[in-house]
């Protein structure tokens, strides 16, 4: 018996790279269910002024990752993913800018944040995908679990963040070459 066609499931990965020299650069990669790239959006490096640093204080990181950079990339994205994964807790805020559920990949976040525990994330449930733990807002967890069942081929949720960083590096090298010319 043939399977009835199902709508295509895609998965997005979002991260922001911070460098003392270049600033904050965000990247959003949308992959097919088999892990192939469908779309890539990235920002040019963002450099907050001293005034921003003073006045935003400790909320600057939240603002850049969860609002300024993330919101723009989501807005520009033509192939909004069925599920958006991030490796920075601040990015969970993006759920207010898009219809897709946003999930924190615990193992990817733990590199910078240390162990992610239930106590640290009230209001979030967890589910598993490709050997990783996803932290998802309670009200979205059912829909994420349904999406997860349709991504059996996806082998890994950590590696795509490396792809984004490689792509950001390449874009920055290209910009530097253009400017030098």
């Amino acid at each position: 018996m043939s399977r009835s066609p199902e709508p295509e499931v895609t998965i997005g990965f979002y991260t922001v790279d911070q460098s003392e020299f270049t600033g904050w650069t965000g990247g959003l990669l949308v992959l097919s269910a088999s892990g192939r790239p469908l779309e890539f959006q990235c920002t040019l490096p963002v450099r907050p002024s001293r005034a921003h640093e003073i006045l935003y204080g400790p909320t600057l990181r939240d603002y850049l990752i969860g609002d300024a950079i993330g919101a723009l990339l989501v807005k520009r994205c033509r192939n909004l993913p069925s599920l958006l994964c991030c490796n920075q807790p601040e990015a969970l805020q993006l759920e207010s800018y898009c219809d897709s559920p946003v999930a924190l990949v615990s193992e990817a976040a733990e590199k910078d944040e240390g162990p992610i525990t239930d106590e640290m994330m009230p209001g979030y449930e967890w589910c598993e995908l490709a050997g990783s733990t996803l932290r998802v807002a309670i009200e979205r967890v059912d829909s994420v679990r349904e999406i997860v069942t349709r991504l059996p081929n996806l082998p890994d949720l950590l590696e795509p963040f490396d792809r984004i960083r490689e792509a950001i590096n390449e874009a920055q090298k290209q910009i530097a070459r253009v400017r030098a010319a």
Partner: protein
Amino acid sequence: MNHDLTVDIDPSMSLCGDSLVPRDSVPIVISEIELRSIPIKLQAIEVKAIGYQFPRSGGGIRIFRGGAGEDAVKPYSQPEALKPFDADAARQAATKARERIRNGKLTRIKPPADVVKLEDRLFYLLQPPLELLVGSEQLQFPFEPFPYQLDGIAFLFPRYAAVLADEMGLGKTMQAISTIRLLLCSGEVRNVLLICPKPLVSNWLREFSVWAPEIPVAAIEGNSPTRQWQWTSPDIAVKIANYELLMRDRDSVLDADQHFDLVVLDEAQRIKNQKNATSLIVREISRTRSWALTGTPVENSPDDLVGIFEFLSPGYLKTDMPLASIAKATRDHMLRRTKDMVMNDMPPKLYRDADLDLTPEQRATYEKAESEGVVQLENLDEQLTIHHVFELVLRLKQICNFDPASGSSAKLERLVADMEEVAASGHKAIVFSQWVNSIDQMRPSLERFGPLEYHGRVPHKQRDGILQQFKQDPTKHLILMSYGAGSVGLNLQFCRYVFLFDRWWNPAIEDQAINRAHRIGVAGSVTVTRMLMANTIEQRIAAVLNQKREMFDELFSDSASPRSVGMSREEIFGLFDIRSPKGRVAG
């Protein structure tokens, strides 16, 4: 005694009680604090973005079996090529892939230097690492590829002009097939033409069935109408043609409506001569991508490489370019690895130079032939050409194999003695000779080892059967091969011994011959016995071969100061200690 103290007080100069009480008020005016504001206007943080959408794997062959719609399209009309989707199997395969990438290095497809547009560069950079694809449910492989083979696939995938020049036996065929498979699956190419020497067509078909069983592939063969249909059939994703066929089917392959997304030349050294008919035809084939596969990109001089690049990218290399410039220009287009570089755990190749003395009969014949030959050469004086010298060389080499009058042969005596040991230990050997006549002469003495023959006089249709028999029949310990027929494309890694009964002019051809046995899958060390007659032309040729080997190493190293290469006319004439009448040999 009493003294009175009398003090006069000046009231105007003194404070008294009344003075402390102010008689009237003194107002102090305090001005109001003036409030001023300095506005700090915090501008919004400006964020600019760039973005690209990439083509979905749209029209190519679909071998991915994911549940998503993208991967559910079936390719062509080969339902048997697709297994029913099995989510559990997919999860298991994904788990294996995850373990692989978390435990080892990742092989990423890197954009070539000549891909300039950021969008194109990102397209390659953002592809999944090969470790995620290989062996997963998406892309089944019969064996786990070696890491260097994944590097080879990552090299070929993004390139429109590429030479895969790995040493024989490292799996160029597998790397090419796997990359073609990936390109077909991703929709990057749809129509591939692979051109190889005729004896290797069946080998390619076999390898496709192993490494890419779902890809529709066919050899262009049969009568003219059949071939005409095959050339134009859109159902054959990969067409395999042999070089000789191109001449006959020139009109079909060069038809104005015929275009290939990728043309692959196997044993691409066949087109090193830019002017031969084959080179001219392959250069005219309408195509988007061009790859060359060869274990010997340079057989005689760097000009060989120029010929190959005329197919890949016409005009990119020039014949008069310095060696260092050629090496630099080709670096991004060519990938060459040797077994020493990548196969640390491969059994060694043990060379044994058998320096033998001619039998008395051979010595007498040899010395007479050489002295008379040299006299003849000298008598030719200004008429002397290099062909005269070659004729003498060949005659002397044949005497080194067998005395023409008596049939006496020191090499054969040694070969028979060695084969006793090889056969007794249950092993198998390959014997290479330049001449089929020499093979005929050695066969009677080798009968007890069950010799098989594989050379130009053996019909093509029988050759596969002979190889199968050699592999499977335990009484067949020996196969006698000519360099021409047996040096390329054959997998004989079950042989542990190789005998070079005579030496070829070109070390690359010798390497190809040896690597029939010393290749991936070899069970143990391979012993290579190079027969060499002492104090003869063979010893002098061996010295020249060593020089050529040095030139080859130089071209494929990063050496900045190449030495002079090529064989001068003086060196060739010097084999007989006679003077060249015309100076240096061109090229």
